[in-house]
């Protein structure tokens, strides 16, 4: 059952405070919640938290036969599981709701279709054996802006993952376990990050970055921008909602450019920290 919509006093309180550029969690309008990245013991297992929103991403690699149309390319699939566990708004039965469709499609666009992975590097023997990467995204809790959280979790999981080294002699493929040879990171072209802005029905209210659940539900439109730290936009998506002036949209994209640079630094830092702790463990073995 869908939870009841926010009450009128709640709505008025939020709108009047947003008008004074105040947010319920004390952030500035264009401030993001700091992402919390927790790495699991396996490579490619990442839990990402934005406030109380939590998403778990996991990558696994298997060897398969490639499709006949693309014999030189590996396969990447994304499985996103949005269950009522995240929020009672998502239902298990029947057709996926519009929000779910949009989240799944956006993940697909950001993580697969924007050429994040070099698929040809996943080829082992042309037409015979390629790597099949399976990225599973579990949405654990939705406290607003699950899309950004899921994209971040997905991209960090891909960066964190390492596939076992393989050796090809003629038609023979030998897979070296991690204890024999150091596993290899995936060849990635770039790292896009997704940023969502929420707009409100009153045009004087400034748009907010990274809306929390209440802001998201009371918003009159969302715009998601995915881009990398090199100022390349990968996906821009504003489906309806409040009409905006062109300059306003371009201004928000500039904000996203700055945030992408900051986020890139944070992610790289966290990955390196994690890698240092792992290096020690490997030596101990």
């Amino acid at each position, binding site marked *: 059952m869908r939870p009841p919509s926010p009450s009128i006093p709640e709505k008025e309180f939020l709108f009047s405070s947003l008008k004074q550029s105040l947010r319920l969690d004390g952030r500035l309008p264009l401030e993001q919640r700091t992402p919390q990245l927790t790495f699991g013991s396996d490579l490619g297992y990442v839990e990402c938290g934005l406030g109380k929103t939590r998403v778990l991403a996991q990558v696994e690699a298997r060897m398969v036969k490639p499709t006949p149309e693309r014999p030189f390319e590996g396969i990447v699939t994304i499985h996103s599981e949005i269950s009522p566990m995240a929020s009672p708004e998502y239902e298990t039965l029947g057709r996926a709701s519009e929000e779910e469709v949009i989240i799944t499609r956006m993940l697909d666009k950001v993580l697969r279709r924007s050429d994040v992975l070099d698929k040809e590097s996943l080829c082992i023997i042309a037409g015979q054996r390629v790597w099949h990467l399976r990225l599973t995204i579990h949405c654990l809790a939705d406290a607003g802006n699950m899309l950004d959280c899921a994209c971040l979790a997905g991209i960090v999981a891909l960066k964190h993952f390492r596939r076992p080294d393989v050796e090809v002699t003629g038609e023979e493929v030998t897979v070296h376990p991690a204890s024999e040879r150091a596993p290899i990171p995936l060849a990635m072209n770039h790292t896009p990050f997704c940023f969502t802005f929420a707009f409100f029905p009153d045009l004087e209210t400034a748009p907010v970055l990274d809306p929390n659940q209440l802001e998201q539900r009371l918003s009159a439109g969302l715009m998601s921008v995915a881009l990398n730290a090199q100022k390349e936009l990968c996906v821009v998506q504003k489906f309806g909602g409040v009409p905006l*002036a062109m300059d306003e949209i371009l201004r928000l994209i*500039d904000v996203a450019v700055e945030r992408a640079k900051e986020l890139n630094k944070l992610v790289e830092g966290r990955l390196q920290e994690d890698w240092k702790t792992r290096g020690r463990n490997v030596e101990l073995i």
Partner: protein
Amino acid sequence: MASRIEILNDGGFRSDGRRQYELRDLAIDLSQQASADGAATITHGLTQVMVSVFGPREAKMRSQTMHDRANINVEVSVAAFSTGERRKRNRGDKRILELAATIKSTFEPVIQTSLYPRSQIDIFVQVLEQDGGLLQACINGTTLALANAGIPLIDFVCAVTGGVHLTAPMLDLTLIEENDVPHVSVAVLPKTGKVTLVTMETRLHVERFEEIFRLAGQAGKVIHAEFKRALRDRTTTLVGAMGAGPRISAEEEMEY
């Protein structure tokens, strides 16, 4: 295969003989379709979409009615013969569901839904031919069909696709061009110049994006002029037809 086709040649012509900023041939047919309250068939070059609008009417499902405004229901179906490769897409396809959700959320703030509480407006989009610019054709067709059905809108919604080949911006892409260059779809409200929809799915530098984004905004105004002309022509025909029927003149009326 696609890379063998020259997107923009040295003479400044595209693969179908157009210039960089030239739009494709736009044909609008607003004639009546069976029992629909409003209908439009729009053709952008070789992309053709047929849209029928029913309503405002009572919702089929009671649960879908909203007490303060009309509910908008959008269904998109893609004909199996619309693409080069014959493929049947079922209605549960994610791409089609997304298209329908996009159309719905684009028109929700544009249609004055609060005038029709407890009712439903159905929009059925049938894609007949696809040659690039599918979203643009769907949105333009829906605007025309809604206007034709006499549903109050706050403004027209005019959508255009733009792309960038190397550094050269282009408008209204065909399928070949869409497969090869980064492209952006923009829908504008011509009266205020504001943007309701922006989508882009390929990698593009921020500055290039800005250029094409502004250009597409301008192109929306050209499309708007076409819309106005088509709707005015249609209304003139209808008014003419009303006057042309057998009528009793004033003197005859006096005799009765």
